[in-house]
């Protein structure tokens, strides 16, 4: 036996802290088009490599290349670009609204807009998303009224959720958007349950579950993996790896080892890793995974490699824990700029059209905001009646709550 030697605790550290000059040249980024595209009925064990690589479609020259390319027409791509611009315009205005005191809190999706926007286009009416707080792109790429999102953010009299929820915790059954929880990861297994229900009923709807890199550490992530694999649920399990979980880098959730996608392999779940800032690649894997689910082939795990360009939320200041320049140095670039370059390269878009599209979208957002403000803002009201505070706790108000409501005099 070897001699006893003192142990020590390893605590992972990100490569760069404030003051450092970020340099990601050692992060392996496979060439666009270089990752193979298997049939949807492939077995997990035959595509282990896809969990350790990055599926990419757009190359540096703005061309779509390789087996995952060629799924979307120029018009569809233009719509995608508009979707992302809409999210960005919406986020920027709501950030400002929070600073102006119209509401208490906001969370933007800056830098990762491609993921929700592209995924939304692979879904069908009746499918259900179980999102986190950074998938506003799912709603903003659908016909959900933007003004209702703002009403919710302002907790005003027209808020569909009656002022009960923290801003951005939207809910819309009709638009396939499950009520967001403030408690991380709980939705991941709920989505699996919803998908199981569709299978139990012999329906054809599928579910998607969403989670952040940091939140994969939560135990409900495991519950979702176990149930999805055991019952081969028609669900797409999406991990948005934007490198950060508030102030902790992704290494705290995975110890610098393996990839998040690789977590699926131990469950026999086909697992893909994709460039999350590449709209075309995200759409392609979303299509592949939703096709699998619809065909009864079971779950897929997808890790989107992206970067949280903004602060975690309006309560956060990232300059305390990471260099300001990280996003610029980030090797996968800006999803909006990349898709714009692609369209321009194809001759389907121009700088002028881009400016014009942005103006139209900003006007759309501004107009929605004018409408929303009419319904009130958080601190100035009006709000839903205080009576609504006691409603919907149960379907019918039980006696003890009736008494409490009476005591409150509402």
């Amino acid at each position: 036996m070897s001699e006893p030697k003192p142990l020590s605790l390893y605590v992972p550290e990100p490569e760069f802290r404030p003051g450092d000059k970020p340099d990601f040249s050692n992060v392996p980024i496979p060439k666009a088009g270089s990752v193979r595209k298997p049939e949807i009925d492939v077995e997990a064990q035959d595509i282990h490599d896809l969990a350790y690589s990055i599926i990419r479609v757009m190359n540096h020259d703005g061309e779509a290349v390789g087996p995952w390319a060629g799924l979307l027409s120029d018009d569809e791509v233009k719509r995608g670009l508009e979707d992302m611009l809409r999210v960005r315009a919406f986020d920027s205005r709501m950030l400002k609204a929070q600073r102006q005191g119209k509401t208490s809190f906001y969370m933007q999706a800056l830098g990762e807009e491609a993921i929700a926007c592209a995924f939304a286009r692979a879904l069908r009416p009746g499918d259900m998303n179980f999102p986190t707080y950074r998938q506003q792109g799912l709603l903003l790429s659908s016909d959900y009224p933007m003004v209702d999102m703002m009403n919710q953010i302002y907790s005003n009299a027209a808020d569909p959720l009656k002022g009960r929820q923290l801003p951005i915790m939207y809910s819309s059954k009709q638009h396939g958007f499950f009520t967001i929880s403030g408690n991380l990861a709980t939705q991941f297994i709920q989505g699996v349950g919803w998908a199981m229900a569709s299978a139990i009923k012999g329906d054809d709807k599928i579910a998607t579950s969403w989670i952040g890199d940091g939140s994969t550490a939560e135990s409900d992530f495991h519950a979702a993996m176990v149930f999805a694999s055991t019952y081969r649920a028609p669900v797409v399990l999406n991990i948005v790896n934007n490198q950060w979980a508030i102030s902790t880098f992704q290494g705290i959730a995975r110890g610098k080892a393996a990839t998040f996608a690789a977590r699926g392999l131990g469950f026999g779940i086909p697992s893909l890793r994709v460039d999350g800032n590449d709209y075309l690649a995200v759409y392609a894997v979303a299509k592949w995974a939703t096709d699998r689910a619809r065909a009864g082939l079971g779950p897929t795990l997808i890790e989107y490699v992206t970067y949280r360009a903004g602060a975690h939320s309006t309560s956060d200041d990232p300059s305390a824990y990471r260099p300001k320049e990280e996003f610029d140095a980030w090797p996968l670039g800006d999803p909006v700029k990349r898709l714009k370059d692609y369209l321009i390269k194809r001759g389907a878009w121009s700088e002028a059209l881009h400016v014009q599209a942005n103006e139209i979208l900003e006007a759309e957002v501004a107009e929605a905001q004018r409408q929303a403000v009419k319904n009130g803002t958080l601190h100035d009201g009006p709000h839903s009646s205080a009576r609504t505070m006691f409603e919907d706790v149960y379907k019918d108000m039980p006696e003890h709550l009736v008494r409490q409501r009476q005591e409150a005099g509402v």
Partner: protein
Amino acid sequence: MARMTMIQAIRSAMDNAMERDDNVVVFGEDVGYFGGVFRCTEGLQKKYGKQRCFDSPINESGIVGSAIGMAAYGLRPCVEIQFADYVMPAFDQISQEASRIRYRSAGDFTTPMVVRMPTGGGIFGGQTHSQSPEAIFAHVSGIKTVVPSNPYDAKGLLIASIEDDDPVMFLEPKRLYNGPFDGHHDRPVTPWSKHDLGEVPEGHYTVPLGKAAIRREGAEVTVLAYGTMVYVAEAAAAETGIDAEIIDLRTILPLDLETIEASVKKTGRCVIVHEATKTCGFGAELMSVVMEGCFYHLEAPVIRVTGYDTPYPHAHEWEYFPGPARVGKALKKVMEAA
């Protein structure tokens, strides 16, 4: 009318509910092929197929979390947690999720579902097969909590719970599965086949949630109890000869405030009995309800007889269990008080 044990009655409730409504599904650890460690789901997989009654992985958060998703879809899941002691890993999904889906979505999504679990001690189960967690459920707004005390109620309440549009925690006192138990562990157990409340209709019926039952009318003191403690209270009343009015709450939440208040106002005295640990147990809430609603009618301080504030011990099960001697002592004390 058939005679059923509580296990058979519970099984019959699920059977009826599954027969009437395709959306009712049943799952949990060992509940599928085998039919559950207490056999409550025996035969359901055979009758309704593996898509409607199936085994689950051993993950209570997953059981409740997936049930939430199913309920949001439109199903009515009725899941089993193998012992109430093992519901804690699911407490986040229960207290932060199931309980609030309706509220936070303003009614857009709802999660009708039942979480069944055997509860309580008396079977030498030690600290992890004996607990009674009803108080922590009662503290969570948005869920209902039910504790039946006999086969007839168990079936009627379980069907009502499955048909209810809110999430229901359904706690089955496992010491009552095979017969009423009054705490006299050294005497032979009466089987349900010899008890009136073991008479259970084969077909569909409900016992409404939120309504208590008066098991024994009485004039001198009100006893508030549920589950196993109903029989302990009956024994204590018989043995002390005190004319107690014994109320079986049946539903912990929502609570039948009117029945409780009317009885305590009538008797002016009250003893509260439960098996769970004392501090912040459901007895504390009952105390408060009596204080708030009946203070001017009280002739003596209300007394709680409960499990002690310790884990449930194995060897000292009968010292721990609040049996008829302890309840009888409380009855006498509350009667002696000025």
